[in-house]
C-alpha cells in the first residue's frame, strides 16, 4: 500500500462523553490511491459523513491513524490541518456553501486570498477555474442570481482553483435534479480523468456512485464491503 495517498488505519470516532457518547466509527481501515475516484455509500448514521470529515482534515479520529501520504494527520495542530486543507484539499458540499451576496469570481478567489496570492494572479486563476467548469461570462453574478447547478459549478471551481490533489465531495448532487446531477458528475469525472485529481465522494444514490471506480459501503461505523467497477 505504499502508493496510497490517503490511508486510514483502525480509525474510531466517539462523539460526546459518558452515557451520551455515540460511536460513529468503530475501526475503519481504508486506503485511497492517488488518482482514484472513490464513492462512499451507506445509510444515514453509517459513519460515511464522519469519515469524510476526517479525510477532509476537518475532524480528528478519537483513535487510530490517518496518513496523508506520510503525514500523520492526527498529530497535526488545528492550524496545520487548515494549511493541509488550504494547499492539498478541495471541498464540494451538498448545500454549495458559497458566500452569499458575493460574486462567483470572489467566491472562487477566496482560497487564493488565504494563500496570499497577489490580486492579478487571483483574478486570472479564478477566471480560468470558472471557465473550466463552463461558467465563463458568469463571473460577476452572485449565488442568488445563479441556478443550483451553476452554484455547484462555482463551488467546484472554488475547490479546484488551488489545484488540489484531493477533491472531497459530500453529496454534491443532493440538491440537484437528475439532468443537472449528470452534468455535475461529468464535470467531476472529467477532473479526475483529465487532471488526475483524486476524488472522494459521499452519496446515498447508487446511480451517482456508479460514476466512481470504486464504491466503499459503510454500515454501523465500519466498512461493510468494497466493489470495483
Amino acid at each position, binding site marked *: 500500500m505504499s502508493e496510497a495517498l490517503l490511508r486510514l488505519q483502525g480509525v474510531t470516532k466517539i462523539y460526546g462523553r459518558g452515557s451520551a457518547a455515540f460511536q460513529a466509527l468503530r475501526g475503519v481501515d481504508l486506503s485511497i490511491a492517488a488518482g482514484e475516484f472513490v464513492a462512499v455509500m451507506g445509510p444515514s448514521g453509517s459513519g460515511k459523513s464522519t469519515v469524510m*470529515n476526517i479525510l*477532509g482534515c*476537518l*475532524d480528528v479520529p478519537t483513535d487510530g491513524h490517518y496518513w496523508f501520504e506520510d503525514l500523520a494527520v492526527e498529530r497535526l495542530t*488545528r*492550524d496545520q490541518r*487548515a*494549511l493541509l*486543507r*488550504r*494547499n492539498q484539499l478541495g*471541498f464540494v*458540499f451538498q448545500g454549495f*456553501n*458559497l*458566500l*452569499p*451576496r458575493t460574486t462567483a469570481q470572489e467566491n472562487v478567489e*477566496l*482560497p487564493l*486570498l*488565504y*494563500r*496570499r496570492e497577489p490580486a492579478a494572479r487571483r483574478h486570472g486563476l479564478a477566471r480560468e477555474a470558472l471557465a473550466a467548469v463552463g461558467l465563463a461570462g458568469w463571473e460577476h453574478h452572485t449565488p442568488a442570481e445563479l441556478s443550483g447547478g451553476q452554484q455547484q459549478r462555482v463551488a467546484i471551481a*472554488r475547490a479546484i482553483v*488551488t489545484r488540489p490533489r484531493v477533491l472531497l465531495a459530500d453529496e454534491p448532487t443532493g440538491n440537484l435534479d437528475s439532468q443537472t446531477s449528470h452534468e455535475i458528475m461529468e464535470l467531476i469525472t472529467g477532473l479526475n480523468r483529465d487532471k488526475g485529481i483524486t476524488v472522494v465522494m459521499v452519496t446515498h444514490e447508487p446511480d451517482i456512485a456508479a460514476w466512481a471506480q470504486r464504491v466503499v459501503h459503510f454500515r454501523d461505523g465500519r466498512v461493510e464491503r468494497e466493489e470495483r467497477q
Partner: protein
Amino acid sequence: MIWNTFLLALRAIRRNLLRSFLTILGVVIGVASVITMVTLGDGATRAVSDQIASLGNNLLTLRPGQRLGMGFIGAPAFKVSDAEAIAEQIPGVRAVAPIASRSTTVVAGANNWTTSITGATVSYFDVGNWKLTEGRFFNESEERAGKSVCLLGQTVKRELFGAQSPVGEEIRVKQFACEVIGVLAAKGQSAMGADQDDTIVMPLRAVQRRLIGNTDVRAIMVSVKDTESMEKVKRQIEQLMRERRRLADNEDNNFTIFDTRQIADTLTGTIRVMTTLLGAVAAVSLLVGGIGIMNIMLVSVTERTREIGIRLAIGALERDVLLQFLIEAVVLSAFGGLVGILVALGAAMGLAKLMQVPFLFNPGINLLAFLFAGAIGVIFGFVPARRAARLNPIDALRHE
C-alpha cells in the same frame, strides 16, 4: 492580506448600514463629548489668561485692608507718596500707577450713564495695558495740573455717544465739565466677570480734587520687570509698606498685595479640574460605546457562523478569522472616532461662540480620542473575534 481584510470589513459594514451606524453611535458620542469638553476647557483657560493679560503683565495690585473688596475700617488709605516710594526704592519695578476711583453719573447731551471714574497717572495706561482706538492719552503736564480731560471706555462711549466720535466733545461729571480727548480700546470682561470697558479715565488729581475731595489713593498698581522677580518684588513692597505704615512686628498687614498671575493660576487650575472631570465622564460613554460594538460583533459572529465555517474549511487559519473580525470591530470604532471628531469640531465651534470663549483646535486630544476609539475596537472586538476563530468548522458549516 490586511488590505483585503480591511476591504472585507468595509463590505460587511456597508451591508448593514443602519446597524453599523447605530453600533458606532456610542463611540461617536463618546469621542465627540470628550473632545468637545477638552476643547471648550482649553478655550476657557485661554479666555481667562487673555483677560488676566489684559490687566497688564506681571502686575501687583496693592489695596488697603485685608480682603478682596472688604477694606476694613481703620485701614489707612495709600497716598501718592507711597507709590512714589515704591517706584524709587524697589529694584525690578517697571512702573507704578496709583489710582483713585468713584462711581458717578455722567451726562452727555440727552444721555446719561452711571459708571466708574478712575483717576490715574500717565503710567496707568502702560501698567494697565490700555490701547487707544482714537484720540490720545493725557500727558504729564495735564496730570500735574489736574486738568479736566477724560478718556472713555468702549461701553461708556457707546452709551453716551453711540456710533459718533466723542473726541473733542464735553461731558458733565457731577457739577464740572470734562473734555473727551480719547477712547480706550475694548478689553472685554475681566476674569471676575466685570465689564472692564465700563470706565472713564481722568488725571488722578482731577478726580481727587473735584470728585472725591481727598488725596487718598484707592489702589497702587505695580508692573514688575520680569516674571521671575515677582515674588521678590512682592516681598520687598510688603516690607516697605509695613515700614511706611509703621506696623509693629506682631501686627498683621493692613493692606493686601494681589498678584494677577496667582489669580490666573487659581482660575485656570479650577477650569482644568472641571475639564478633566467632564472629560472623564465623557470617557465613560466611550466605554459604553465599546460595549455596544462588542454586542453587535457577537451577533454578527452568530449570524455569519456558516460563512466562518466555509472560510475555515477552505483553509483560513484561526488568526485569519480572528483578524477579519478584529479589523471589522476596529474599522467600526475608528470610523466612529472619525465621525466623533467631526461632530466635536462642529459642537465645540458652536458652543465656543455661545460661551464667548476662543475655539482652540487641540490636535493632541483629537488624536488621543481617535486612538482610544481604535483601542476600544481592539479590546471589545477581541472576544467576538476569538469566538469566531475558535468555531469548529464542521459545526459552523452545519449551522443554519
